[in-house]
């Protein structure tokens, strides 16, 4: 049986310059699997999520490759069908809860809008579903909160609401794009726990985009390590933390701060490793250009 989400040889280029932002990325996420996408800023980890959800910036173009969601080839579909499919089987938990809710709409409709508008639910069913979801994400007094506006709620509460909204239509894949980066540390832990809890409860496949290997070790079963838009390692989490295969992965792991000794463990990635991996990327680029 094939995986729920399959990405095969996906390359994305910046329109105009032709620079490659994703370099023949391949990865698969099974139903119920939690996969981490790890890399530095600019490694392209968010870009993969955006490509799957059809929200790449206008300046970025998919040059080759395939994205299959639930067996459908997304890039070959008509845009309207693709939007509908994505809206009904996939969802996004965005990075910044302060900007990801519409400031002029009440909370309730923002959780259930896709149920009503895309999946054709009745208003009363949607309302009941919103209350149920707010309970699931541990929000006190859901009846009061669905009538509130985003500015009346804290960042942590807003992220809970965005999680509720992501799970509203029982999606089979959720892409969490650094969902805790914009929150303060105590709230981060709660949100991380909540996402794990919701994922386990609903059995949703989850792609967890993060730069934090510590988070990956707690939440994920597998991970893909990205450098400059290229997957340098794809491994089970247990295997990875026991013995990372790629030199860049080892360097990244070594650079993760440890709570036991934060000062000594704060090390930048070894420049010779960066040099080696950059050379590797350059070779891949030459082959790619040559092959076209």
């Amino acid at each position: 049986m094939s995986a729920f989400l399959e990405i095969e040889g996906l390359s994305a280029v910046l329109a105009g310059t032709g620079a490659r932002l994703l370099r023949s990325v391949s990865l698969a996420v099974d139903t119920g699997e939690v996969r981490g996408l790890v890399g530095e800023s600019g490694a392209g980890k968010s870009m993969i999520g955006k490509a799957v959800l059809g929200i790449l910036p206008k300046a970025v173009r998919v040059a080759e490759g395939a994205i299959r969601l639930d067996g459908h080839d997304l890039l070959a579909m008509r845009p309207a069908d693709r939007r509908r499919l994505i809206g009904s089987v996939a969802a996004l938990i965005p990075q910044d809860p302060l900007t990801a809710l519409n400031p002029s709409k009440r909370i309730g409709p923002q959780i259930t809008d896709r149920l009503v508008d895309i999946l054709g639910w009745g208003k009363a069913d949607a309302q009941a579903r919103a209350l149920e979801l707010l309970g699931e994400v541990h929000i006190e007094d859901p009846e009061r909160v669905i009538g509130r506006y985003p500015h009346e709620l804290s960042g942590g509460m807003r992220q809970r609401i965005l999680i509720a909204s992501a799970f509203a239509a029982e999606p089979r894949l959720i892409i969490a794009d650094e969902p805790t980066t914009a929150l303060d540390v105590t709230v981060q832990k709660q949100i991380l726990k909540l996402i794990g809890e919701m994922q386990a409860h609903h059995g949703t496949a989850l792609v967890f985009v993060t730069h934090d290997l510590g988070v990956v070790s707690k939440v994920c079963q597998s991970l893909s390590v990205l450098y400059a838009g290229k997957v340098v390692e794809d491994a089970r989490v247990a295997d990875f933390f026991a013995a990372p295969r790629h030199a860049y992965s080892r360097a990244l792991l070594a650079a993760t701060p440890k709570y036991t000794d934060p000062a000594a463990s704060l090390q930048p990635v070894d420049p010779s490793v960066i040099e080696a991996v950059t050379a590797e990327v350059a070779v891949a680029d030459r082959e790619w250009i040559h092959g076209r």
Partner: protein
Amino acid sequence: MLSGSLSVLLLRIVLGRLATMAITLFGVAVIVFVVIRVVPGNPVAMMLPPGATEADIARLNALYGLDKSIPEQFVIWLGGVVQGDFGTSISTRQPVLDLVLGRLPATLELSIFALVLAVIIGGVMALTGTRFRGTRTEGAVDVANGVGLSVPDFLWGLVFILLFGVLWPIFHISGRISPALDLPFVTQFYVFESIVRLRFDLWWDLLTHMFMPALALAIPLAAIISQLLKQSLKETMHLDYVVLARTKGYGENRVIVGEALRNAVLPTLTLIGVQFTFLIGGTVIIERLFSYEGLGNMAIDAVINRDLPLIQGIVIVFALIFTVVNLIVDMLYAVLNPRLRHA
């Protein structure tokens, strides 16, 4: 759908504004009163035939109270205004208040019709430009905005008279309503009353008179609305909640109208408030151009005749309209922007 907290906020805005409105109107009254008395030109000299004696001039001056000092005249006039008496027009010898109220509805109907046209034209252009951003259609919208912004309203008026009044006489180019018609109206709000009375024949006649002056007034405002709304829509389209809505399965049109528009419209609303007052100012020339019997047309006659009480009355009414428009904008802002509530 007005919630309790919203009504309270609206009431607070109105009460908070009453004091500043009174001060503004007083300031306007002082300025116009003094200015029209210190600039050259004497109403009495305009009324008397050549060869009038010094005694005749002094007698008329005394009759209209123009022999007193300006502060004294102001106090007398203000005392009347407080009691609803704006004085008597020098040129027509009728009460100023009756004259102004008789013409005000015509100007209000024209300005509001122009505003509606501007919002529709500007809104459609902004939405079209946003929907087809990055294409030639957006380029065409930008060019149209540029033309609309750079040609003043009275020039549009002249162009329309030439095109649709003279070359292809589709519209009436003069007056408010065809003089031959029998008018059943009891108020001066002809357009409004013709709809209430279901007299669509009269309504159509009014509309064909009003359309060209209103369009001339509307075009510059439409261009401003289009430009600003398109700009803020474009910025809003990149915001996280709009991108999130795309992942929910919404198409482009729904994303623009359902997610972006309400938030993008707020800065435009403020600007419409300011620009609408300019539009009302523009009625002075446009009404003259189309011989439309409104307040603006009367203002020009009043200035030509140095009819001091009438000028004062008209200016006060214009100032009152401006302050009320700003008040309405503030209230709309509170309705549309939930962040202003519970403040």
